């Protein structure tokens, strides 16, 4: 459910802090919010190349986390429908124009014997 909404079409932009890379806004494919400790992965593949989680950060309503921190965050949540910001570093600056952006979300949902989550892929235009 809601897989088609994971990758947001708006808000795809270059990093603005001098580093090379960008930000894509992402939503969780689930009908309720979830404590961050149960967000097991938000994996990005940019133009066919996986971006290592160690080169991404995850921000919800102003709170930023490295992915290796998430398993211990039990006092913050990814709200239902909330656009999180997935910031990522690349070796080279992002080219202007279209990019292939794929995101895979894995969630640990207690009432399911297997992981939850979903995948989405869109062609996004980098905001000027």
């Amino acid at each position, binding site marked *: *459910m*809601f897989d*088609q*909404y994971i990758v947001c079409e708006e808000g795809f932009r270059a990093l603005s802090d001098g580093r090379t890379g960008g930000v894509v806004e992402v*939503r969780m494919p689930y*009908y*309720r*919010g*979830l*404590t961050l*400790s*149960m967000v*097991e992965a938000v994996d990005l593949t940019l133009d066919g190349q996986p971006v290592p989680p160690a080169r991404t950060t995850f921000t919800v*309503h102003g709170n930023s986390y490295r992915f290796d921190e998430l*398993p211990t965050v*039990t006092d913050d*949540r990814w*709200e*239902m*429908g*909330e656009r999180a910001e997935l910031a990522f570093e690349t070796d080279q600056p992002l080219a202007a124009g279209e990019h292939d952006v794929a995101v895979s979300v894995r969630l*640990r*949902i*207690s*009432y399911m014997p297997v992981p939850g989550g979903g995948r989405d892929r869109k062609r996004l235009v980098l905001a000027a």
Partner: protein
Amino acid sequence: MSTPEHRIKRGVSLYSFQEEYFLRTLTLEDCIRVAGDIGARGIEIIPEQSIPGYPHLTDEFVDTWYAWMGKYGTTPVATDLFLDTKLHPDRRLTLDEQIASVHRDIDIAVRLGATIIRAIINTPPEVMEGAAPYAEEQGVRLLLEVHAPFHYEHPWILDHLEVMHRTQSPALGLMPDMGTFVERFPRVVSDRALRDGARPELVEYIVKTYDDHGDTHALMDIMNYRHGGPVEIGLARQATHYIWTDPRSMLPHMPLIGHVQAKFYEMTDEGTEYSIPYDRIVPVLVEGGFDGYLSSEYEGNRHVQDAFPVDSVEQVRRQHAMFARLLGEQKDPVLPTPRTLGAGPGTGPHTTGTGSH
């Protein structure tokens, strides 16, 4: 035929508007307003779906909540709890932690003015038993949702009934989800599979097997034998998640039933739910003396969102028009709106008989 006297009321779970809430085309206030407009006075809310900052509720939010109730003529009825036993990556919650989680959700229900809490199906019987005293003290009822593929003779439900009968706690009971009475395979689900590229004859095979109440076990194997791919195998798996059981199976448990989740997938142009025979379910609830709310749970959105605008509001409106009729309301407070073009399969070209049903 006239409906016998009853005290069944109409409500809506805000879960019904998940598509619009997710996309922020409706705010939480909008959802409550819409429910009031439809005449669905009882509100069920999933706090961790639509209350940002859950589990912390601000006084400001609570004040706003009650103001909305007054403004839209609605009343809080139920909240839904989850039990995150896998909160931590390396261990499961202890029994005490689980009970504490339920206590926290009881506090939330009380602050929101709800007297009923949906306990999710993975809540163990001993957690229900352990939380019952606090629930009773707080004046709320913990109702285990009976959700497909579970049913009233399933071992897990029997384990829960054992606790309920043994303890005789007024705080424990059942919340039937009408998804246990899916008589026909949901059309929105099979049509979605067709749009996803499933071979029509394989979809038809699954639908026919389900509709004939054949053995859906090994349907995934048969899809494999018939050279089906992931979409067909996924549809076969879904066929094992829906069940048909006799609605009368609720009758022996009626004293424990405090709230009904009126799950639905598709209200047709003819004013019926495609898969779930409410015209036979409501009379059972009337017969059994059910005196709580029918709380809409529209769940068709996820099956039509790929190809059609989702109009959850219209779907819920149609369900309540049906309920008003089935409940024998003399003055129908829900007037069907004119059909809008392109507003979802229920209001779209299905009138010309799309699909092989």
